[in-house]
């Protein structure tokens, strides 16, 4: 009996032991919940490999002291994080640091509010254009460099401004003077970044069937309108690409809406099929467009009369460019250009033609129409940009925020494209007929454009970080499905040239830490306080002799033996 009782008792004790141990662990873990002087969201510089070479910031975790640009010359910054507000950025300084591979603990760039959607609003900021250009330059520098320390972006707010002011004050006087301001420590506890496995690119296409006459067995000709919707920038969670190519996507959706209105009625349905394509993989030499075209049936490809690609039509004043790869003397190109020019003249817009030959051996694809041209489909790109962008340039980075896009520009662009297309479809070339006249039922809807533009300006769309069933991709699909007869999605894997790494955003904790000297000083003070207290108590309660006797050696044994 006694034996059976004990195991039960032991088990009870074991359970209570486990609960005590669990409690201890919880208490130990509680340390992590301690509050910091400031905690802000930060976004990491993109990390990617291209053809085996490493680019971007190769590290994510951060645990260093903060320093500002006013650091004393000759100071060792290999264990310090430089906090640089964009307004005070000296690009040559950063370029020097990166190119000469000077050791640094980390970089933190503070971006003004105008580049953020929530707070950007319509603030009038001096030197808006200047800041935009500076940021674009910085971005190009950073994404083409291999940086062996963490680089982060954050938006300015009151907390970090006060912290930075404090750091500047401390740096200006050389060393932190007071014991309590041992400095600020920036801690970002994230795990090491891992490769993004099989990044997918999703192409969405919408098909609007034209009117087939009875007895007509031939395939109707098709006109394609294409825009790429994904972006690439220095900080993926901030790469919203309002102009590149949010404006193109919005324009495409509005054109689809207008033509769906026309095509819904058989009396006004044109004799052309319309193919709307929202492609991904734009920054990567229009990889997605290539895969999309390759997936076409031969017959379909041959039936495409021409394709219009939309790229950045959100911030132009009076001039647009049509880029082609076939020579301008080509009959089809002439026809397209004339159609656009006629409408543009009526709208007071200047349209120029730019010809860029394709070099088959060069993998670089600067415009989306080049992918069509490589498969012998006539195509042109409508854009506000006059010169072909380099690889990973103008792909909707940090500087491309809502502030810099003009809805009126997009509205006019939509009208231009829609009118030109409609005149071609209904055979009204040269005639002064306004199909999408303002104020009519087929007028371009600025509210529609604005709401979609706002949505796009809040959605980062870097392809490797957009999953197959991302809500935004689904939203695009649904919208296109509303305006077209048939919608298809094509999922592909991004080619092996590019490899991306995750860990793109984190939470930065800023702690105000006391210096080591302060702790030692405190220990000294406390030690002497306790010693004084001890002596005081001994003296008052036992007498001074007792205190002295504590330090005397005990009387030697010699006395006893003697």
């Amino acid at each position, binding site marked *: 009996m006694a034996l059976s009782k004990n195991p039960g008792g032991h088990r009870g004790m074991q359970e209570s032991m486990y609960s005590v141990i669990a409690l201890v662990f919880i208490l130990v873990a509680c340390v992590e919940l*301690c509050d910091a002087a400031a905690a802000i969201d930060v976004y990491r510089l993109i990390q990617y490999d291209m053809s085996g070479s490493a680019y971007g910031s190769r590290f994510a975790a951060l645990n260093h002291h903060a320093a500002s640009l006013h650091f004393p010359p000759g100071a060792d910054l290999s264990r310090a994080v430089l906090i640089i507000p964009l307004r005070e950025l000296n690009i040559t300084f950063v370029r020097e640091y990166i190119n000469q591979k000077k050791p640094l603990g980390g970089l933190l760039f503070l971006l003004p509010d105008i580049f953020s959607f929530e707070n950007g609003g319509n603030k009038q900021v001096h030197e808006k254009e200047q800041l935009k250009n500076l940021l674009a330059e910085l971005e190009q520098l950073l994404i083409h460099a291999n940086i062996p320390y963490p680089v982060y972006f954050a938006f300015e707010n009151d907390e970090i401004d006060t912290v930075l002011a404090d750091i500047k004050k401390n740096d200006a006087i050389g060393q932190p003077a007071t014991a309590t301001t041992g400095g600020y420590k920036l801690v970002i506890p994230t795990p090491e970044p891992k490769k993004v496995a099989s990044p997918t690119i999703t192409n969405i296409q919408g098909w609007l069937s034209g009117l087939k006459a009875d007895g007509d067995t031939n395939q109707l000709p098709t006109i394609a309108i294409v825009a790429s919707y994904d972006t690439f920038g220095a900080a993926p969670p901030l790469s919203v690409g309002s102009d590149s190519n949010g404006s193109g996507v919005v324009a495409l959706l509005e054109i689809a809406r207008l033509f769906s209105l026309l095509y819904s009625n058989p009396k006004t349905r044109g004799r052309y099929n319309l193919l709307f394509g929202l492609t991904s993989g734009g920054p990567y030499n229009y990889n997605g467009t290539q895969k999309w075209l390759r997936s076409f049936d031969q017959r379909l490809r041959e039936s495409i009369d021409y394709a219009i690609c939309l790229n950045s039509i959100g911030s132009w004043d009076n001039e647009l460019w049509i880029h082609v790869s076939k020579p301008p003397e080509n009959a089809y190109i002439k026809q397209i250009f004339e159609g656009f020019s006629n409408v543009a003249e009526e709208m007071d817009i200047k349209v120029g033609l730019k010809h860029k030959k394709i070099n088959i051996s060069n993998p670089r694809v600067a415009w989306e129409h080049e992918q069509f041209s490589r498969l012998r489909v006539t195509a042109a790109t409508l854009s506000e940009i006059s010169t072909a962008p380099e690889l990973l340039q103008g792909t909707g980075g940090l500087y491309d925020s809502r502030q810099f896009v003009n809805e009126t520009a997009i509205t006019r662009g939509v009208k231009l494209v829609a009118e030109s297309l409609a005149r071609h479809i209904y055979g009204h070339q040269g005639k002064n007929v306004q199909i999408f006249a303002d104020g009519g039922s087929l007028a371009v809807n600025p509210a529609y454009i604005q709401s979609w533009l706002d949505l796009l300006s809040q959605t980062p769309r870097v392809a490797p970080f957009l999953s197959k069933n991302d809500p935004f991709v689904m939203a695009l699909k649904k919208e296109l499905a509303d305006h077209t007869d048939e919608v298809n999605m094509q999922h592909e894997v991004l080619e092996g040239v590019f490899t991306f790494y995750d860990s793109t955003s984190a939470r930065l904790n800023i702690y105000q830490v*006391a210096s080591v000297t302060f702790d030692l000083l405190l220990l000294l003070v406390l030690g002497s306080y306790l010693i004084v207290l001890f002596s005081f108590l001994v003296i008052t309660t036992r007498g001074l002799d007792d205190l002295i006797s504590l330090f005397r050696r005990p009387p030697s044994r010699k006395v006893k033996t003697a």
Partner: protein
Amino acid sequence: MTMFHFFNCAILTFGPHAVYYSATPLSECDTLGTSVKAALVYLGTALVKLVCLATFLQVSENDGFDPYQELLKALIGFIDVAGLYFALTQLTHRNISQNHKFQAVGLGWAFADSVLHRLAPLWVGARGLEFTWDYILQGLEANANLVLSISLAALGSLIWLRKNKPKTLIPIIYACAGIVATMPSITSYPRRGLGWHFPKVVGFELFTSLVMAFISWQLFSACQRPYAALLSPMKFRLPSSFVV
């Protein structure tokens, strides 16, 4: 460095108790048992107080000074006094002199108070990277609390354990005991009503505790004198352990 800071604050909070124990004759008379028992009585008192506070007190939205609530809290604070009475009179102690008994009880009481109220915040907070002065101030508060507890125990022993006191001093003793017992409520007025910052409040506590300690020391020695005067003719006959 953060464990270092925790260690510093810990020795500020708990060091004086250990120093007090070892410096005074308490360590010689081996009064550890008394202190431990007093600590346990404090735990019991704290539990009873908690239950009473939960039952009778309303949670106020604003952090202002509500005299009604403070009065209620002061009344509940008298449970502390009852606990101290229990610790001083009802527990069976080894044969130690009155002088040492109140010190041991006060020490145990203050130590239990520090552990209960200050150990957990110290463990969770002082080990973080962020530096604040709060924990050092809390340690100073613990010191003030030690002094207050010992003076309260002294006054308590005067009230309940000493039978013959000079008549004139009795009202003063009771008044002082009342003030010391309601000291938490008195400090909450500057903290909430006047809105003083923590360092100021701690300074106030230290000052008042030293003042009250001094007063109670004077009262205690004043009550000793007639006793000693009575006893002095017989002093040389009594064994040395009875000398106070």
